[in-house]
Each structure stands twice: as C-alpha cells, then as structure tokens.
C-alpha cells in the first residue's frame, strides 16, 4: 500500500498505453516516455508494461506502508527517502514506513517511479493507464491527490530476483542515441507536400520555442509560421504520439501520449520513436530544432536502441 501525502502537480498511474481501442475513439495514452517507464519497471523487477507512477514538474510525497523495492528514471527531480537522497536509475529497497519525497526539477519535466509488483489498479480496456479526459483507468480516472491509497500488486514477472540496494546506477540515457540537446529527429509527414516551399525550408532550419500551452495531449510551439502552399481542407485521419500538426495559425503542435485518435490538421512531420522521450522533457521557453531523417533510419535507430536495451537487461539480470 502506498499512501499519498502530497499528489504533486500531475502524478498519474500509467503503463504502456491502451492499445486496440483507438478505432472506438479511445485515446492510447500511456507513459509519455515509454522507454524510461520500461527501464524503471525492469529495475524494480517488474514486467515492462507494469503500471507505475508518472510525475511532472513537481513530484508527489508518498509513504510506503510495507517493505518495497522501487526504481525511478527520468528528469533530475530532487528525490529523498526519509530525508536522504534517493538515487536514480537503480533498484532501491525501502523499509516499511519509508516516505519518498519528490520535489521539482531544474532540467526536464517528467519522471517515472516503478514499485516492485506494480501499481495495482483495475484494468480498463486492457490497460491501467489513466485517461484524464475520459476520466477512467488508472486511479479513479484522475491524477493523484493527498489521501489516496494505492495498492501494490504481486510480482508476477517470473523474475525471482531479490532486488535489494544496488551500489551502481544504470545510465539509461546512454542507451538512447542522442543527437544533441534541443534537437529532435523527424520524418516528413503525410501532408508534407501541402506546405509552401518556404514552410518546408523553415521547418528543418528554424528554431521553435516550447510554449506554456502544453500537457499530456500535446505541446504548442511558436516560431516562424508554416503556411500551406494553398488553402486545403484535410479529411480527418489517425494520428500518433509524436505527430506534428499545423493548424491554420501556422504554429506547430506536437501531439503527446494522450493525443486524440483522429486529427484534422495537416501533418508536416512525425517524431522518430527513439526521440519520443525528449518530448516528455520539454520545458516552456526551451527551444527545439527538427533534424530530418528517413523512415528506415528511424527504424535502424530504434532497433539499435532495443538491442542495447536487451544487452543492458541481460547484464543487469546477471549482476543482480
């Protein structure tokens, strides 16, 4: 059992999302950085898709009633266990009654906290992710608040590792082939050809600023406008996490994990899956630039990262 002493700004229960219901208009959702969530779960001895806690900007304060194993990944939040620093990227064993406090973060925006056994909330449409707009899934379909009590599940991952304290920390960022701060790799979107020659040039050469208008559904950017070559109405079609839409204002919106299933704005680009985690860490006022890659390059990057992830997992399994 976890007692929530302070909910934090936006702490929600997430897993890897609700798949198979987008044809009914149900948002896929899930952790805003699926890779970090999988890593935290792995370190806590869980299956990769176990439910965990996602926090944003100002974290929660939590009391663990029983002895537990936890692991957290993501931005550099100040994190303490009974007042002492709580190390990141490694399994940590907590004594019964421990209080974890997550404060704010100077860089990045989000972090993921996995608990051995996973957060035990009922599955809704095959997922434990919180649908904040639909108000279902996760913990009562909403963000956590003081006084909430979360059940912890049984560890059924088949890994009988007795995760205790580790003297090492994993560097998950090393497993992500980064291409520089503030740069996101993007493929041309399905409506790329609809944009003016100027817009196409601008898109990959300009710097865009992250505005305050951002949430789990998407982030609005501001920068030089990206007009269409001629006015054109799009017929709504499916969108995805990382799709960059351009509404009539000409200012792009990058869709987040809680994007709607279908969108009606021209899609100028799509962020490579390996860089989705970067989007989760955007802070208002920061700048971003788009670097063009081809689909097959995005696949190579993804396959390489998955291979490195498998190697890291294998090594950790041996060392634990």
């Amino acid at each position, binding site marked *: 059992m976890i007692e929530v002493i302070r909910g934090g700004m936006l702490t929600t229960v997430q897993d890897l999302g609700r798949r198979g219901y987008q044809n009914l208009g*149900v948002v896929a959702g899930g952790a805003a950085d699926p890779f970090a969530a999988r890593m935290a779960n792995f370190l806590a001895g869980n299956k990769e898709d176990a439910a965990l806690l996602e926090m944003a900007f100002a974290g929660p304060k939590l009391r663990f009633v029983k002895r537990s194993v936890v692991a957290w990944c993501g931005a550099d939040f100040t994190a303490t266990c009974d007042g002492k620093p709580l190390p990141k990227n490694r399994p940590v064993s907590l004594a019964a009654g421990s209080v974890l406090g997550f404060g704010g973060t100077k860089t990045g925006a989000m972090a993921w906290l996995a608990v051995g056994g996973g957060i035990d909330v009922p599955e809704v449409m095959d997922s434990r992710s919180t649908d904040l707009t639909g108000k279902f899934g996760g913990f009562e379909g909403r963000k956590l608040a003081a006084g909430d009590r979360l059940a912890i599940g049984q560890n059924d991952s088949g890994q009988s590792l007795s995760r205790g304290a580790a003297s090492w920390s994993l560097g998950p960022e090393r497993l992500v082939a980064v291409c520089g701060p503030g740069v996101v790799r993007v493929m041309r979107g*399905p409506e790329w050809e609809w944009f003016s020659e100027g817009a196409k040039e601008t898109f990959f050469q300009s710097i865009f600023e992250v505005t305050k208008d951002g949430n789990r559904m998407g982030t609005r950017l501001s920068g030089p406008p990206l007009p269409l070559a001629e006015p054109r109405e799009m017929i709504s079609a499916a*969108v995805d996490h990382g*799709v960059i839409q351009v509404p009539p204002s000409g200012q792009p919106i990058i869709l987040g994990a809680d994007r709607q299933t*279908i969108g009606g704005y021209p899609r100028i680009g799509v962020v490579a899956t390996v860089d989705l985690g970067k989007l989760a860490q955007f802070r208002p006022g920061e700048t971003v630039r788009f670097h063009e890659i081809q689909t097959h390059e995005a696949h190579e990057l993804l396959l390489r990262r998955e291979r490195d992830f498998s190697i890291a997992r294998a090594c950790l399994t041996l060392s634990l």
Partner: protein
Amino acid sequence: MEPRITALGDRALIIELADRIGDEAPSRIHQVCSWLSDARLPGVTELVPAATTVTVFYDPVALKETGAPKHDLAGWLSSRLTERLARLPEATALPPGRLIEIPVCYGGDFGPDLDSIATRAKRSPEAVVELHSGGEYVVLQLGFAPGFPYLHGLPEALRFPRLETPRTRVPAGSVAIANRQSCVYPSEIPGGWHVLGRTPLRLFQPDRKPPALLGPGDRVKFRPISPEEFDRWEDAS
C-alpha cells in the same frame, strides 16, 4: 481509386482509399479494415479507420523478428498490405455493417436547436425530425471523445455549419448535426453541433464489452420516441 500507401512516421502506414468523403461508400472503408484485420499480418498492432483512410500501426521490432528485412521494414509491410488488398472481395460479397436503432426524443429541453434548424431549413420541426430520422446513416469513424460516432448520411436540407459559439457542456446522449454529419454525444463534453434531441441509450461505458455501442461501419437508424418512452428507457437501464 487504387489504394495509396504512405508512411506516418516509423510506426504506422496510411492506406488511402478515396480522395473525398463519399467517393467510396463509407462502409467499404470498414470492409477493408476487417479484411486486413482478419489477415493478422505480422507486426501489425492496431488498425484505425477514418473517413477515407485505414491507418495500420505496427511494431518495428516485431516486424524484424518475423523476418522483414531490417533496412526496409515499412516497404516490406507495405507489400504485404498491397498483396492482401489485391485479394479484397467485391463489396457485395462482404457482409454489410450491423444495423442499430437509436431511439431519440426530439425537441424540447432535449433538443434545444430543433426550432432554429427548422427555421433555417424553412421547414416545420416535425419535418426536420422526419428528415433526420428518415434515412440510414453509416458510422464513418469514432473520435473526438471515446465512442463519439461521426455519422454519414445527413440529408442535404439539414446541412449547416457548426454553432458559432460552442456550448461548454452538451449532455450525454445528445443527438446533433453539423456540416454533412450527425453524431451522438457519448458523454457530457463541450461541443458545437446543433442538438436536435436525446437518446436514453448509453453510447460509451469504459467497463462494458465492447465499451462503445457503435463501431466503425455500423449502420444507424434514429427512431423518434415520446418523452414518456424516454423515461421508460431510463428507468429500465
């Protein structure tokens, strides 16, 4: 037109089946969707139909593991989709969508825009009800909110742009029209469609299987009911 396949990033392919809504019967999109779904193509995780497209989501890692060449995962899947589409049976050889009847209590508090639509359509409210409930609709797609159906088949005389100022709250069950379509609000959400009436049916319940009453490709008919019948439905559920 011949289906056109384009990429949506590194995890989805879009199959375009028509240039305009209505060029291809909306039900055809859903027949294509079922046809592809039945094939259980390797690596495919989800199919999302819309008015003129079917978007095929895939897992690149799973694709590679099933033997797709790692330098051309998207091309390989695109070829599998093209092969499958080439064997698509004629529309008439496939079963039509389910027909679902939706009882609607028109006008009054349930349909605050019925009179204004009647005025704009230069008809009586009764004639608007008759028009709206006279034909059959097809669920073009679900989106905007969970279980929110976009219904194709609105008679031309009832086609008007959305409200200039959307309402901040539209009650669940509201049956409404805007532009070329009709819809039913599955839950209480903001909205700018003209509300003609309300159904006592619940279109979306997260814990029901399936959670949405209507699926893409289903056919829908509205049946006018009295306020008394509306209350009886409510009591029964």
